[in-house]
């Protein structure tokens, strides 16, 4: 995978780590930012096998699910992005059992997969992220929490929006 993009992702998530941890702490165990950064650093260290390096280093559910998004970005080097995202969406829903509207990473990823290019995918993901705020979580630890995260953004959806935003910027350069 493109080394420059991976380096940019690491830099961006170094800044986002405490923000994502704080959002995650409202409903989960408060480590989403740390997990993302751990995985992205491992991917940047091994760009030829970025998605599996990400999965092994990050661990947890998000390690496996986000590695499918990284794999979609790897595939996007040879085929158009929204199509590779659609592929990731179907795998992530199958493995995680979640669907659009459950307040998960899919709320950003599903609209992005229906866009027509990298920039509109990033915009769609950002709008999907904003729409997670009023939702009640139906998957993950958040659904066991009092209030189910209503009023909070979903940390996973935020990571998707950030990753696709950087991908779009990179592909425009």
């Amino acid at each position: 995978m493109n080394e420059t993009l991976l380096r940019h992702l690491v830099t961006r998530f170094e800044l986002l780590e405490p923000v994502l941890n704080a959002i995650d702490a409202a409903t989960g165990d408060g480590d989403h930012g740390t997990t993302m950064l751990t995985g992205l650093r491992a991917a940047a260290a091994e760009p030829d096998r970025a998605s599996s390096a990400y999965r092994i280093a990050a661990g947890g559910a998000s390690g496996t699910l986000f590695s499918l998004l990284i794999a979609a970005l790897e595939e996007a080097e040879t085929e158009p992005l929204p199509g590779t995202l659609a592929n990731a969406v179907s795998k992530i829903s199958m493995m995680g059992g979640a669907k659009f509207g459950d307040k998960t990473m899919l709320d950003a990823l599903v609209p992005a997969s229906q866009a027509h290019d990298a920039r509109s995918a990033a915009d769609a993901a950002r709008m999907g992220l904003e729409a997670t705020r009023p939702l009640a979580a139906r998957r993950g630890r958040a659904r066991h929490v009092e209030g189910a995260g209503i009023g909070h953004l979903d940390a996973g959806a935020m990571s998707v929006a950030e990753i696709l935003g950087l991908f779009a910027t990179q592909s425009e350069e």
Partner: protein
Amino acid sequence: MKKLFNSRSSMADDMIAGFLAAWPDAAVIGKHPRVVRRRALKIGKVSLLIGNGSGHEPIAMGFVGTGLLDANVVGDVFVAPSPDLILEGIREVTGPAGAILLISRHEGDVINGRTAAMMAEDEGFSVHPLLMYDDISSAPKGQEEDRRGAAGTIFIYKILGAAAEAGLDLTALAELGAEVRDCTRTLGAALNPGISPLTGQQMFSLPEDEVFIGMGVHGEPGVGRRKLGPVRELVAFMLDALLQDRQISPGTRTLVLINGMGGCTMMELLTVFGEVAAGLAARGIPQTAPMIGSFSTTQEMAGFSISLCTPTQRMLDFWQAPHGAPLFPDLHGVGA
């Protein structure tokens, strides 16, 4: 709050080193340093293994040994190990008879366990992922498959471990595991939070005079709060909820597991058990071979759970069969 560790990043590895140093005859490290496996594998046997985040000991590493787990794949604190790591565990202990991969139903464990099982199938292994769920507070009656795995999963570990040792094949073990799961229910209550080793912070907050009913194993707050009165009243409330969820007829022999979450004393746990046993006796339900102690823990969280299982005679024999796991109690001959 103080905690003993060298560094946050070495917690799981330092703990594994201590375990192996203590019981080198029971367990050894596999090719991967996070795979703890039984020293002497039994040829021709179906393997039984589980991957899970650490921080809940003695489950599951302490249950590795003859007649119980063949391997435990140890993740970081509260983080499910990656599918790649679970696959290492499957490779380490699985032969032609195949393996049962136990999965306590939590999102990360389910996703990574199922992915690992698929990867193993691609390599030619026969692996049956067995989902375990028993916590009645995590989804309503009728939606049992959406429930979390809690301490009642211990019945599955032990009964399948003994059954695999006795030579049952993969299909029979998968059926037996589902049978044990379907006759087991658990409900927990938490008094005080533990400290997350990841953040150094309390995992939740609770007024001085209240308990949470239905606390998760990672400190997920419960579904309902109650004022904490005499333990008799709390146990009566919990036992009613368990028996409403799954009725047990008078005369049905029942196994009781009282699990401490890390911060309850044996004095407290025995008191709880006494109230459970009295409540069952008042309903004409006999109990036998109980397991009482802190087995599935959440650091120093103060709390406990009550698990009830109504075993067949065959399950009961496997429950009490001798085993070689260092941190599982010896139930052989107890309550017979």
